[in-house]
């Protein structure tokens, strides 16, 4: 388990306070307060439309909040464009994979590494090679990303985000649509990434996969945080049982 010694007294890498965003009368984020410790693995669950993906979009800068503040390593990034937040250490995978289809798998990672880490292309060849090894995509390195299967596309989302050298990795339903065997593989990879020091925030409907990795769980509904704490305790709480009637934790 990623429950490493010294985790509890490590500092906060991501701090969110009073974060709100509305689309018309729909509240996608309602006064959210959230702090993520360096190195931890945090899970986020909630029904469809609870504002999980919107929260990610606010953290990465794809959305601009109506109110509130987002701090990365103590630095205010609330109004920063996405590409600058990436350079400061935030990376994400998209729920629906967005590969650069006409580029090869390797070139997809190269974009992440060269821009996310602001380095010359030739200086990141090794890094890209290693990330491809870790994510099991090395044998697909030089084929166009447009010809990948769903599992490979999900892995590419993960690999491209890792290539940017993130401090905080946001995973948006990366296990959705995969078979159980594929999920087991993916879970192993994600645990390894977390064990090597990358902070993980993971939104997932496949709760079993999530619980195999995260050490803390929060529950969102109607844009608000309704429960938070130790994963099993949260899963057994009344709030969660009310929302997920019939779901086995």
């Amino acid at each position, binding site marked *: 388990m990623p429950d490493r010694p010294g985790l509890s007294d490590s500092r906060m890498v991501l701090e969110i306070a009073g974060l709100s965003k509305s689309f018309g009368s729909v509240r996608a984020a309602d006064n959210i307060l959230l702090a993520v410790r360096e190195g931890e693995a945090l899970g986020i669950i909630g029904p469809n439309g609870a504002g999980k993906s919107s929260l990610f979009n606010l953290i*990465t*800068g*794809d959305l601009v909040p109506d109110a509130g503040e987002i701090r990365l390593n103590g630095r205010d990034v609330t109004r920063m*464009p*996405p*590409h*600058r937040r*990436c*350079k400061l250490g935030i*990376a*994400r995978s*998209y729920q629906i994979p*967005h*590969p*650069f*289809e*006409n*580029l*090869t798998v*390797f*070139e*997809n990672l*190269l*974009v*992440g590494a*060269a*821009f*996310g*880490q*602001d380095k*010359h*292309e*030739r200086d990141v*060849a*090794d890094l*890209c*090679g290693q990330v*491809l090894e870790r994510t099991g995509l*090395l*044998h*697909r*390195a*030089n*084929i166009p990303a447009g010809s990948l299967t769903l599992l490979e596309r999900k892995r590419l989302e993960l690999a*491209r*985000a890792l*290539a*940017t050298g993130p401090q905080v990795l946001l995973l948006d339903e990366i296990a959705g649509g995969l078979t159980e065997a594929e999920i087991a593989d993916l879970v192993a990879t994600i645990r390894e990434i977390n064990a090597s020091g990358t902070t993980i925030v993971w939104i997932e409907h496949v709760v079993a996969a999530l619980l195999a990795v995260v050490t803390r769980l929060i529950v969102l509904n109607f844009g608000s945080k309704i429960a938070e704490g130790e994963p099993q305790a949260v899963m057994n709480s009344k709030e969660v049982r009310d929302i997920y009637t019939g779901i086995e934790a």
Partner: protein
Amino acid sequence: MQQPRYRIETAVEATRIFAFAGIGLVVVLVLLPFFAGRGLVQDLIFVFYMLALAQLWNLLAGYAGLVSVGQQAFVGLGGYMLFAFTVYGGIDPLLAIVLAGVVAFLLAFPTALVVFRLRGAYFAIGTWVVAEVYRLVFAQVKPLGGGTGTSLSVGVINGLFGIDFLREVFGLRTSLARDMVMYWTALALAVGTVLVVYFLLRSRRGLGLAAIRDSEVAAESVGVDSFRTKLWVYVLTAGITGMVGALIYLQTARISPDAAFSVLQWTAYVIFIVVIGGIGTIEGPIVGVLIFYLLQNYLAGFGTWYLILLGALAIVIMLFAPSGIWGYVSARFNLVLFPLRRRLVRLNTEKVDSGE
């Protein structure tokens, strides 16, 4: 940490052969005016500047996703600046071409400020509207001929750098020497544009551009500054388009707002060239311009029917070979003349994957 285990490879063997063939072709083209007739030389000037315009539009639309229908703004601007600099500034026309490019480059910033607020189809229409504004503004400038236009004096054109040299050394007539200087300028602009586009696309910025083309949201999420990248492409293409415009109106020696800011001549034909040749490739516009030249040479006499034929051909290509003639040939024979693919190669072992 450890020894490097991977490296990036770009060129392929066939490309090196092509590179030498390309250099050979350029040498032949440089020497051509000494052997070829005047008609061919003048035709090739046209081919060269259309090629440069097509490469630039392809970079804008095919790579940066900026489908502009208003590049005539910068062609006309360049042409008018050439007239202003040579007639009123007394500057040598060749230097004036460069200065016209600088003016177009600088004016592209405020223009971008307006059109970059729009996206997709709205961007296309917006650029067209801006080009019309440019046309109407220049129609008001009386010293440059106002609405009816003006001509360059023979003195200005014959004062072109290098003409005296050619006359004395090779004993050429002035008109012939003038054509040759313009021919070489056009050739330099065309070859220069192809090289600028190629090396831009091979650079890190070009990689970012390819990422933006495929998914702007994802490109931003991995650290690509899409606004700056697109702005950079826009002002760069505007600058070179301005230089091409200046050359065009140096050759025709007569300018009017309607011709200089013609959407048909400087954008519609250019789009045709890129679409039939193959958008999103450097080879495509080269193939396209040759086809366009042949069509125009043999069919322009049919007037309106010629235009209908061009339109019909463009539609047929879009339906049956959406990636253009080059796209079809390239896929069929696995042929790439300007390699852009970056391949990951494992050191000391076999290649990572043989697939392309």
